[in-house]
């Protein structure tokens, strides 16, 4: 696997305050890496260091082998960055805005015009390309932002809070585009967010930042197992007579870790990995499951667990 982003022991101080403290991670080609954490965790500062827009106090960054501090232009040529709350020139049309950006990237006008139509079609703004950006909705602007990073054929795309402040439909469109950029175009994507549920949907791997430190890193499964322990499922059962006798009938099923009676139902906790077998067995013995919850690790839980502990 080709490594596109490599960060090692990044540290950034602001007047004695350590905003980023020893952050290391890497992003492979075509991978979607999510940088998570509450506001003020140091996500944006880390991103700025990757782009050479802030100099690290110490530590090493390599983007496709380039050092962003020393060769910021080379890094910016292959990296599309969509800042949080990005703005466009409101008195220009989408096409004019993109043409301006293409020129800043040294793309010739005739090539750029073709490319612009192509990326606008990708993000679904082709039919409004000649409208002023001032008339665009927030979701359309964000998609225009994605178009603006695609125009330079990037190897890496960095998105800072790409879904903040747009409606669910817009969010879905943006997430879908992010997925397609990674899967179809082979672009590596680094995105930062505090919206866990969305990140969970698209990210291959995540890194959780808290108070300037990367506290956990890996796939959501891995992190979940680390933090929350083994998975456990819960089901609610009914039976003709709910009493201790009925409870005994559940004896001997492998994988059941706990069973008790509550509110006229039987509650059973079990090993998630054997869910199917257990449900079948329970039904065979005459119980009726009214609710079976397999527990997935949600980032929310991981998050809360981490931040409660500090």
């Amino acid at each position, binding site marked *: 696997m080709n490594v596109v982003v490599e960060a090692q022991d990044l540290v950034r101080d602001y007047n004695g305050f350590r905003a980023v403290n020893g952050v290391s991670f890497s992003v492979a080609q075509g991978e979607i890496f999510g940088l998570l954490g509450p506001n003020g965790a140091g996500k944006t500062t880390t991103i700025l260091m990757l782009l050479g827009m802030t100099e690290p106090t110490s530590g090493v960054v390599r983007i496709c082998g380039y050092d962003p501090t020393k060769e*910021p232009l080379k890094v*910016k040529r292959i990296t599309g960055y969509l800042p949080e709350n990005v703005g466009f020139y409101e008195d220009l049309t989408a096409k004019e805005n993109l043409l301006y950006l293409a020129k*800043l990237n040294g793309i010739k006008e005739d090539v750029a015009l073709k490319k612009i139509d192509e990326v606008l079609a990708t993000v679904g703004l082709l039919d409004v390309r000649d409208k002023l950006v001032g008339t665009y909705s927030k979701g359309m602007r964000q998609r225009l932002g994605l178009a603006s990073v695609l125009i330079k054929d990037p190897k890496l795309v960095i998105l800072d809070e790409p879904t903040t402040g747009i409606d669910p439909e817009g969010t879905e469109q943006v997430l879908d585009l992010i997925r397609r950029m990674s899967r179809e175009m082979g672009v590596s994507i680094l995105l930062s967010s505090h919206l866990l549920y969305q990140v969970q949907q698209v990210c291959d791997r995540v890194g959780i930042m808290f108070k300037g430190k990367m506290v956990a890193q890996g796939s959501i499964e891995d992190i979940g197992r680390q933090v929350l322990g083994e998975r456990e499922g819960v089901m609610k059962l009914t039976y003709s007579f709910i009493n201790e006798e009925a409870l005994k009938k559940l004896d001997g099923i492998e994988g059941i870790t706990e069973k008790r009676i509550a509110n006229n139902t039987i509650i059973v906790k079990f090993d998630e990995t054997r869910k199917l077998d257990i449900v079948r067995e329970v039904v065979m013995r005459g119980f009726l499951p009214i609710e079976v919850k397999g527990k997935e690790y949600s980032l929310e839980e991981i998050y809360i667990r981490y931040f409660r502990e500090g």
Partner: protein
Amino acid sequence: MLITLIIVITGLFSSYTASGALGEEQFLSEEYLFLNLFTSAGGGLPSFLFFISFFGPLLGIILGFDAINGERTRGTLSLILSQPVYRDVIINGKFLASIATVAIMIASIMVMIAGISIAKLGVVPNGQEVMRALLFFVACVLYVAFWTSLAILFSIVFEKSSTSALMSIALWIFLAFFVYMIAGVIADEVYPITQQSDPELLAKHESLRTMLLRFSPAVLLEEISIALLNPTVRVFGPMFESQLKGLILTPLSLGQSVLVIWPQFVALIAASIVCFAVSYLAFMRKEIRSV
């Protein structure tokens, strides 16, 4: 731009009435009639020079006050900075664009004034007058460029455009109006004068006052234009009898006039360059985050 329109209209109108006034009264007595068009006032309207020295700063401030922080709040600054361009390209572009705007504007107004006056009076400027007018033009551009640079500097230092606009305007008001009072007060404190004071003390008082006044670019522009547009002026401030001895009151040549106001020219240029340099440094070191 409203201000431009005001300057154009009043400039034209005042030159028109001024040329009328000149035509009636001083036609024969004036040696440099053409140059007088820029400084003379008529029909209750102030001169072109007055308009530039008064509205020029406002124009410069309008062009520059939100150059950087405006783009920042609109989110376009981080958009541009994430493209493969050097930062100094951005700040250089801001300066060049606003100075070019100012230059084109002042040039077109001056050409219009000259055109109307030539048509009305039938006086064609000679080579020296054209040169002097050109230098006056350069001085006007430098003067407005200073205010633009200052406004751009404030737009980098302050996060909000409203703050930078207010700061620029406050400084403008201070340098345009209060500096006269303050210079007077300081001069009075250092060299107290009465009606019986001897000339030496009066001279010292006066030269300290003018020295302090020259901190204001408006005063510099005023002195430059006096010397450039009025070729008989050879010295500013008090004159001593010894200096007047043997003086033949003929107009100075262009070179000599330039020599008289050379320090003022250099001061104007230096002020703009200092503003530019500080803005440059501040911008290069600034971390741009979205807001």
